[in-house]
C-alpha cells in the first residue's frame, strides 16, 4: 500500500486567522511540519494554542469568519490547498484523510444506527451499495473491537468507550492514509483509554495508517508517537522524534511541559508554568514564550527562526 521513506503530508507556512469583533485571532500562524507514511505525529499544546484549528485548517473545515487562510499542504505530493472546495470534498476529505473529532462520543448522530453511520462515508464517496457498505462497516467494527450486534444499535445505547471506537471505525472505513485524532481519549477512563490506544496501535500496524494526534496529555500521547510537534500560541516551537523528545526536550516550553507531568513513581518534584499564554489577538513581536521563559535573554526580543539541531527543530535562540 504505502512505501516507507516518503512524505505523506507536508504543511508549509500554513496560516489560519479568524476575524472577530476584537480583531484577527491568529490561531494558526505559520506552521511547517511533515509526516511520513505510517508515522504518527503528536501535536502537543495547552488549550487555546491553536492545535484543533490546525486540524481544521488541514481538513479545510472552516467557519465563516476566516480572514486569512494560506500556505501549502501537500498530500501525496499534490498541493491540496490549490483544489476547489468541491474537489476537496470529493477527493480528499474522508477519502485520503479523515477526522476523529474532539468528544467523538457526542459527535455521533443520535437518530441513526451506528452501523449505518459508519457505512455512510463509503456510500457517499465510493458509491458502494448499502449492503456492501454495511459489510465493510462490519469489518471495521472487528478492527476496533466493537461486537457485531452493535451495528444496529443507536449511539445512546453504547458506552463512552464504545462510541469512541465507533467514531474511529467511521474514520477508518474509507481506508484513508491519514487520520487526524483530536483528543481521542480525553473524556475516557484509564482502562478504556489504554484499550483505545491498543486499537489505534493495531490499526497503525495492520492497515499502515498515519496519524496526527492532537492532545494536551503528554503521558498518553507517548503511547502512539513517532514524532512530537509542540505548539505554542499558534506556532510550532519544537519538532523532534519521540525517543529524544521524551528523554530530553530542547525548547524551554517543552521542558516545562514535561516537568509538569505527574509520574506514578519516582521522587521528582512537579513544576508548573507561571503566567498565561499570550492572547492570540495581540501577539508580541518577540519570541512568544519569552514572557514566561526562565532562560530569557536580550536576543529573545526578536522572534527566533526554526533552528535545526542534530536533526531536531527548535524555535529558540538558546540553540542558535
Amino acid at each position, binding site marked *: 500500500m504505502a512505501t516507507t521513506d516518503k512524505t505523506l503530508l507536508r504543511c508549509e507556512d500554513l496560516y489560519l486567522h479568524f476575524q472577530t469583533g476584537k480583531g484577527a485571532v491568529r490561531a494558526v500562524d505559520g506552521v511547517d511540519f511533515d509526516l511520513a507514511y505510517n508515522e*504518527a505525529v503528536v501535536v502537543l499544546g*495547552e*488549550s487555546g494554542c491553536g492545535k484543533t484549528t490546525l486540524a481544521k485548517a488541514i481538513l479545510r473545515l472552516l467557519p465563516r469568519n476566516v480572514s486569512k487562510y494560506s500556505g501549502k499542504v501537500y498530500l501525496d505530493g499534490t498541493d491540496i490547498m490549490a483544489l476547489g472546495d468541491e474537489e476537496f470534498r470529493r477527493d480528499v476529505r474522508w477519502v485520503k484523510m479523515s477526522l476523529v473529532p474532539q468528544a467523538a462520543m457526542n459527535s455521533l448522530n443520535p437518530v441513526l444506527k451506528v452501523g449505518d453511520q459508519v457505512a455512510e462515508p463509503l456510500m457517499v464517496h465510493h458509491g458502494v451499495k448499502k449492503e456492501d457498505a454495511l459489510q465493510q462497516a462490519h469489518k471495521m467494527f472487528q478492527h476496533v473491537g466493537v461486537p457485531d450486534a452493535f451495528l444496529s444499535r443507536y449511539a445512546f445505547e453504547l*458506552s*463512552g*468507550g464504545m462510541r469512541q471506537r465507533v467514531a474511529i471505525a467511521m474514520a477508518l472505513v474509507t481506508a484513508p492514509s491519514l487520520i487526524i485524532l483530536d483528543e481521542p481519549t480525553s473524556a475516557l*477512563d*484509564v*482502562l*478504556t*483509554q*489504554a*484499550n483505545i*490506544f*491498543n486499537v489505534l*496501535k*493495531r490499526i497503525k500496524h495492520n492497515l499502515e495508517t498515519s496519524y496526527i494526534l492532537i492532545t*494536551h*496529555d*503528554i*503521558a*498518553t*500521547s*507517548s*503511547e*502512539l*508517537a*513517532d514524532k512530537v510537534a509542540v505548539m505554542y500560541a499558534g506556532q510550532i516551537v519544537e519538532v523532534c*522524534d*519521540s*525517543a529524544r*523528545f*521524551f*528523554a530530553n526536550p530542547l525548547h524551554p516550553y517543552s521542558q*516545562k*511541559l*514535561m516537568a*509538569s*507531568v*505527574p*509520574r*506514578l*513513581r519516582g521522587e521528582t518534584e*512537579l*513544576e*508548573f*508554568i507561571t503566567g*498565561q499564554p499570550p492572547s492570540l489577538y495581540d501577539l508580541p513581536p518577540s519570541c512568544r514564550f519569552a514572557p514566561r521563559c526562565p532562560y530569557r535573554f536580550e536576543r529573545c526580543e526578536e522572534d527566533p527562526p526554526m533552528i535545526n539541531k542534530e536533526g531536531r527543530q527548535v524555535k529558540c535562540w538558546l540553540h542558535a
Partner: protein
Amino acid sequence: MSPKITKQNEPEMIQTAKDSRKQNVALLQIQNLRVWFELRRFGFGVAGHVRAVDGVDFELGYSEAIAVVGESGCGKSSLMKTILGLYEPTEGAVIFEGTNVSEMGTKGLRWYRANVGYVQQDPFGALAPFMNVHRILEEPLIVNGVRDQAEREQRIRKVLEEVKMFPVDDFLQKFPHMLSGGQQQRVVIARAMIMEPKLIVADEPVSMLDASVRVEILKLLRNLQEQHHLAVIYITHDLATVRYFSERIFVMYAGKLVEKASVRELLYNPKHPYTLALLTGTSEPDAENAKSFKEVPPGEPPSLVTPPPGCRFHPRCAQKIDGVCDVKEPPDFQVAEKHLVSCWLFDQK
C-alpha cells in the same frame, strides 16, 4: 486550629466534638455505607436498585489526606455526595466527629456544612455566572451568620490571598467568565475554605484543567492542607496525581472499596488485580510505550443494577478462581500493615 464559627452561634455540638477529639476519635467514620437509588417503573412499582455505593467502610483522621480512585460510574461521586449530606444513606452511617450526619437536624447540618468544604469538578459550572467573586465568597459567610461587614470583608481578602489570587482588588469585582480555568478553580477552593472547615471534599478538582495549571492547583491544595491541618478526601480517576497529594489510597470498583493502602504501598506493592490494571493503564511519558501493547482487562465495569455475583471484578479478571470468585463476595484480607485487599487470591486459609 482557628475558631470555626463566631462565638454567639456556636452550637453545643462543637463542645461535644472537642471532647470526642480528645478521646482520639476519627474525624470522619464511614460505617458499612450503602447508597442505593430506586429505579421506578411507570412512576410507581420499583424495578430494581442502582447500587451506587455498596458496603463502604473507612475512617479518616484529623488532617489526613486520602484519595478515592476509580473509573466513572464506580460510585465515587455518590460516596462523596453522601458524605456531604446531599444523599441519604440507604444503610450504614456517616459519622462526623462522633455525630451521625443523618441525625443532625437543620441546625446541626448547617454547622456540619460549615465544617466541610466542597471543591467541585467543573469550576465554571460551580460558580454562579451572575455573581462576582466578592459576592460568591460573601454568600457562605452570610448564610453562616457572620453579621459584621468588616469581618466578612477581611475574611474574603484573607482567603483570596491564601489561594494566591494577587492582587486581590483586581479579582473582587470580576465575574466567573472573566477568569481563566485555573483562576475559577481557585475561587471554588477559596469558597470551600472560607468557613475554615476541618474537611475538604475535592471531586476531581483538576480534571477539567490544562496540564500545566493542574500541577499549580494540586500544589495549592496540598499547601492549604498542610498549613491548615485540613483533612482532605480527594476523588479522582488519575492515579498519577495521587502521590503528590495524599497519604492513603482507596481503590473503588463497582460500589465497593477493593483495596486500601498507603500511597507508597499501593504504588510499589499493589495486590488487587484491578489496581494492577489501573497502574498498567496509566501511561508515563516514555517513547518505549509506542512499541508495545498494554495488557489491560477487556470489557467494562458491570451494571450496578445487577452486579455479578461474588467478586464484582471476576468477569474481567485474568486470575479468577472458578467456584470461588464467582460465588462468594470476598471480605477484606490484610496483606501488610494497613493494607487491605478484597480479593480471594489473598485468602490465607
